[in-house]
């Protein structure tokens, strides 16, 4: 955003004020996430910087909260649960969602708008309402407090993300490519694996990532329909924040921030790859 040559002095000053404001807003966005990283290495059981940390005394820093995390059976068990529930619901949501997206992107789909609205609804309805509704219903059919119940609930919550990303990918899919492959002598199987799949996979994978993170980060529904056995990591954090606030939570939070960085990088890579394959951007 360069300053145009005709800008007046007032505009130049405004330009720098504007950039300054934007920097402050960026600080507001990212600062809180970065501040917990050093805090998680605190040697004291506080949520703030100790004297020793501020003077960069090595004694002020420690890994005790990470040690606490990795030696606590409660935390490790909750991570295991989170992965069991997250992976199962992601697989289910991705398979069902991708198949449905194939149908939805067909020109012949009847009542498309209505069906789409229905499939997206778990994303729109506030979580507390879904949680209350599922709690009532799942208790009736003996699914409350079971792994299956939580997995089905999370599948429902993840489905809109898969449907949205995969239909978006399919709608920009150029079907003449299939004909081109046929005309160049490729068999249908070869066309599917060499042309269709590489183009669609990025959409499916990013839909699956969305579904996974939805489940992995979900608190409200688990809070209502899971029993003590299905305690997931967000629940462990939730009760940690409410009951006995210890910096172990900050250690977990730091690891989760790193996880989301990793995820973001993966998604960005997928996006670039799909753009390159479609020839939308050079290299």
């Amino acid at each position, binding site marked *: 955003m360069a300053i145009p040559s005709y800008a007046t002095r007032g505009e130049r000053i405004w330009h720098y004020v504007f950039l300054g404001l934007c920097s402050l807003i960026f600080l507001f966005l990212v600062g809180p996430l970065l501040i917990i990283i050093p805090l998680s290495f605190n040697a004291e059981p506080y949520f703030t910087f100790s004297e020793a940390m501020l003077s960069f005394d090595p004694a002020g820093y420690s890994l005790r909260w990470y040690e606490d995390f990795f030696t606590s059976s409660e935390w490790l068990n909750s991570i295991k649960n989170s992965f069991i529930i997250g992976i199962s619901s992601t697989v289910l949501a991705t398979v069902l969602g991708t198949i449905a997206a194939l149908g939805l992107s067909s020109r012949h789909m009847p009542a498309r708008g209505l069906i789409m609205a229905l499939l997206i609804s778990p994303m729109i309805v506030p979580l507390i309402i879904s949680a209350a*509704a599922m709690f009532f219903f799942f208790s009736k059919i003996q699914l409350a407090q079971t792994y299956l119940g939580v997995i089905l609930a999370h599948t429902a919550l993840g489905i809109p993300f898969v449907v949205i990303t995969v239909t978006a990918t399919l709608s920009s899919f150029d079907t003449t490519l299939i004909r081109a492959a046929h005309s160049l002598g490729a068999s249908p199987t070869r066309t599917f694996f060499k042309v269709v799949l590489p183009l669609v996979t990025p959409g499916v994978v990013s839909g699956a990532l969305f579904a996974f993170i939805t489940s992995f980060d979900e608190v409200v529904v688990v809070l209502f329909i899971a029993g003590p056995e299905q305690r997931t990591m967000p629940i462990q*954090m939730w009760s940690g924040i409410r009951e006995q606030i210890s910096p172990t939570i900050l250690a977990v*939070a730091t690891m989760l921030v790193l996880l989301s960085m990793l995820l973001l990088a993966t998604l*960005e890579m997928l996006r670039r790859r799909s753009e390159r394959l479609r020839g939308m951007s050079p290299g």
Partner: protein
Amino acid sequence: MSDSPSAPLTTADGVPLKVSLRRASRRLKIKALLLVSPLLAFLIIAFVMPIFDMLWRSVDNPEVSNALPHTVEALENWDGESLPDEPVFAALAQDLKTGQEARNLGLVSSRLNYEKSGMRSAVMGTARRLSRIEPPYKTALIDANDAWGELDTWQLIERESAPYTLSYYLAAVDMQYTPSGEIVEVPDYLQIHLALFWRTFWMSGLITLLTLVLGYPIAFLLANLPARRANLLMILVLLPFWTSLLVRTTTWIAILQSQGVLNDVMVALGVIADEMRWQMIYNKTGTITAMTHILLPFMILPLYSVMKTIPPSYMRAARSLGGKPFLSFRRVYFPLTIPGIAAGGILVFILSIGYYITPALVGGQSGRFITNYIAYHMQTSLNWGLAAAIASILLFVVIVFYMIFNRLIGVDKVKLG
């Protein structure tokens, strides 16, 4: 061109082309539906049916007619003006006896207690002493508990013997039935829900406004930077978007609490005295700050995608026609961004009124939303009918805003990340 225009076109095997075409398109339609049907069936069972079950529960009223069938039957011929006669009391004694033996008076006693306090002990207490009660039942039951001698007890039982009730909805908006069946507001000291609804709405409105004020400049900057640098800065928007909600809430606790980072810095700088630390969390400030931070990306992303489509030449044209910078912005650029403002604003507002976790963790008493009361009635007061009614009202509000959103923008246009 055919010689006889009336003869229909046919395919090679003699079927009229129209029929064949219709058949083919029907086949494609069925194929598309078949692909969608597994997911549709799944969602209907796992999501739609629970929602309808909840709506049903908010008006369902089986407790009285299930537990006191004979009383309800005997009350059918009652005039409702004076205390009922002996047969009704005898029926009540019989129902309480059966209920006490089957141990299923709990539901009906709490149901009646929602409407009239003291009814739980009236039902349970009388049932326990039933073995010592002899006919005539009317005087004996009134001796056992005064509530049976009050006219409104019987009016209550008669009213709640209906299979459906509006009383949960009335309670959700701080209203109630008078004994004679009119609808009035509950006394001031018992009013909680309406105030919470309003608080949820105005705080969500404020949060939406704050995200707009903070998000607009960022979206503008991102839309006008060269692609490479915009992508880099976009990461700063997407990182919080992708980070766990609990993590973002936790960091605000670390920053804002009275022994937290911000207060420590202020004390160290001498801005405030050590014993005068700001109370920035576990109140409205806490909820508003944390939720503005959490929802900001949802405002920036739609704004950005709209601003991206505005050609920079428009502003240059406005300037070359003599518009001052502010005027050109207000008359040319800003009107073009209104669809983005609408999309982001409705999105943030919908998300905000349904938030539960953040207000519950950092809102304290004064920063709570109506959602926290749904949870309270689900888990603590165990009045599930009331929880369902509040949730249904909230759901209705969300659906209305969602339909406006859909009309304006279209849900397929939602971009993720």
